[in-house]
């Protein structure tokens, strides 16, 4: 039980980081289905810089910046040029798969090396608690960062002026514009910050959950992060609970696989996606998205 919950929290962290990024972006009215590609970019850049500098910390920083850059690219096309957001997202995903695959084969001829990782560290005081200690407080920095950021982002979105302006842009862009909120700039900032988080989420895969990079290793986690945002009904608290739910589903899948249940393995691999689809079928109709989600904003010419 303890090990299962520990794994659930650990596996939830990358999903939570990516979903928090997407939460910021979607609350500003932009759908970014390029999270998957952004995560993959972060995973690769984090790994490559980590290997080159032999420092996992530097890798994380580089992954964050790489994510920000992908977000800025997305914003150039989707915000500045008004290209459809879904189309830009798909292009980002294809570009990321192609570019990281190409760069990995150019950099690592033969076998891909193993890189540095951030190891788990028990927090002082609370780490020694029975049961709660190992489940919640003996993790990699990615886990602490994910849950810490959830608190910060939840507070910022609901209780601060920039958070209010961001949500105004996502709900009624035209009214926000009339109030003097620079819609395009707010969306650009949201995309850059949110994609930075997706980059870090990717780094969690190469610098903590494993120590190497394999092509297409995100394996749909970015898309599940999109579902986490819907399941979490566009609130930070909801996103935390949804990410934990998916983390638990994943942990159960690994547990069942390790126990050698008499089931073919593709069933296990299918499980997270079937769960996601089922959950969406039950919650999507009741969840209310930001009103201007997905609508490009064109300022009226006067």
């Amino acid at each position, binding site marked *: 039980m303890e090990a299962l919950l520990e794994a659930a929290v650990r596996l939830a962290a990358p999903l939570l980081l990516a979903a928090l990024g997407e939460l910021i972006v979607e609350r500003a009215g932009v759908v970014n289905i390029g999270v998957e590609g952004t995560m993959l970019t972060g995973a690769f850049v984090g790994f490559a810089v980590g290997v080159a500098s032999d420092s996992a910390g530097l890798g994380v920083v580089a992954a964050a910046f790489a994510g920000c850059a992908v977000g800025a690219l997305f914003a150039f096309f989707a915000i500045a040029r008004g290209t459809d957001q879904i189309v830009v997202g798909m292009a980002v995903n294809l*570009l990321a798969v192609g570019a990281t695959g190409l760069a990995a084969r*150019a950099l690592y001829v033969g076998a891909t090396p193993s890189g540095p990782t951030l190891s788990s560290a028990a927090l002082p005081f609370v780490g020694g608690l029975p049961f709660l200690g190992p489940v919640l407080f003996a993790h990699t920095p990615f886990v602490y960062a994910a849950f810490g950021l959830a608190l910060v982002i939840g507070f910022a979105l609901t209780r601060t002026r920039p958070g209010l302006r961001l949500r105004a842009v996502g709900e009624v862009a035209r009214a926000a514009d009339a109030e003097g909120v620079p819609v395009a700039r707010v969306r650009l900032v949201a995309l850059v910050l949110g994609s930075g988080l997706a980059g870090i989420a990717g780094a969690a895969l190469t610098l903590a959950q494993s120590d190497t990079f394999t092509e297409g290793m995100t394996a749909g986690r970015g898309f599940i992060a999109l579902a986490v945002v819907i399941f979490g009904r566009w609130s930070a608290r909801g996103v935390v609970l949804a990410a934990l739910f998916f983390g638990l589903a994943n942990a159960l899948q690994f547990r069942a696989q390790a126990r050698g249940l008499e089931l*073919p393995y593709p069933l296990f691999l299918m499980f997270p996606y079937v769960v996601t689809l089922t959950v969406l079928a039950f919650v999507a109709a009741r969840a209310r998205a930001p009103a201007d989600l997905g609508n490009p904003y064109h300022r009226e010419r006067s």
Partner: protein
Amino acid sequence: MKLGDERLNDVARALFAIVLALVAVAGALAMLGFAPGPALSALARGSIGSSAALTATVLKSTPLLLTGLGVALCFRCGVWNIGAEGQLLVGALCATAVATRLLPDAPAIVLLPAVIAAGALGGFVVGAVAGALRASRGVSEVISTILLNFIAIQLVALAVHGPLQEVAGAYPKSDPFPAAALLPTIGRWHLGIGIAALLAVATQGLLFRTAVGFRMRAVGLAPRAARFAGISPERIALFTLGLGGALAGLAGAFEVAGVTGQLYEGISPGHGYTAIAVALLAKLHPLAVIPSALFFGALEAGAGAMQREAGVPATVTQVVQGIAILVSATYAVSAGRRHGGAAADAAADAVEERA
């Protein structure tokens, strides 16, 4: 001729997107330390350099044409079908089930149509699931179709490790198709190529010459105005996703019955994702999907040669696809179309408000 000019402009922009993508890739290759010259000449040799290369290009283009048509139809109606990959895979799976398990001993006159129909039906069901989830539960088809792709990949894995695995049981692949289930061929060109080309013409007719096609285009241009005119965008979405799924499912059936002769994991190298680039480069125009599919098919055929002869990883094709999508979607959508639809929607909103 204003219309002619506009068409010419579209073609020019599509060519611009292709050239820009290839130049960017050549630059990226040079940066990564590959020599772009030999790489690009290997690409050309492998795609159009010989009659064998041309055949390879046409064979690779056929699934791209069918999935591209399905995606173009959906995008036309404002339905974001990202699921052609999964629809293709389930189509291939169903075709294989009929050919190797359900009717392996049937004569060709029965078996071949059954195999093709099973493929289309399998794709249809996968598309319709996404359509039904959107119509009845409000699930965005963007996410449901993506998730269904991952589920379909595992369904194929499940099938070739389980009920559809070859009787010999050595490898995770299906039994070879009985001769009666294989598409007739001339050389390596199979019947599916001709059917796919005919379906491009039929899709064009459906979209521009029928009442259903008119409703589909109306929903795509101005969903709220269309609803005001009594058209249900949800029903159109369900219909279109089913139809697009059937086209992709056919692509899967043609792959197993015309090219590979059996089912195995990884039977599609991502045709369903390339289809999005195919449809966008064609500006969602069914007839234009033919040259667009040929271009991306040539790219895939040539990428193999590029990997063998110049050592350039084939993943470079995805970079070309990504750039082509961005450039053609950004610089090739005629502004008039977009704003016309928005104006009709605004008018519908205004009337509704007053009522």
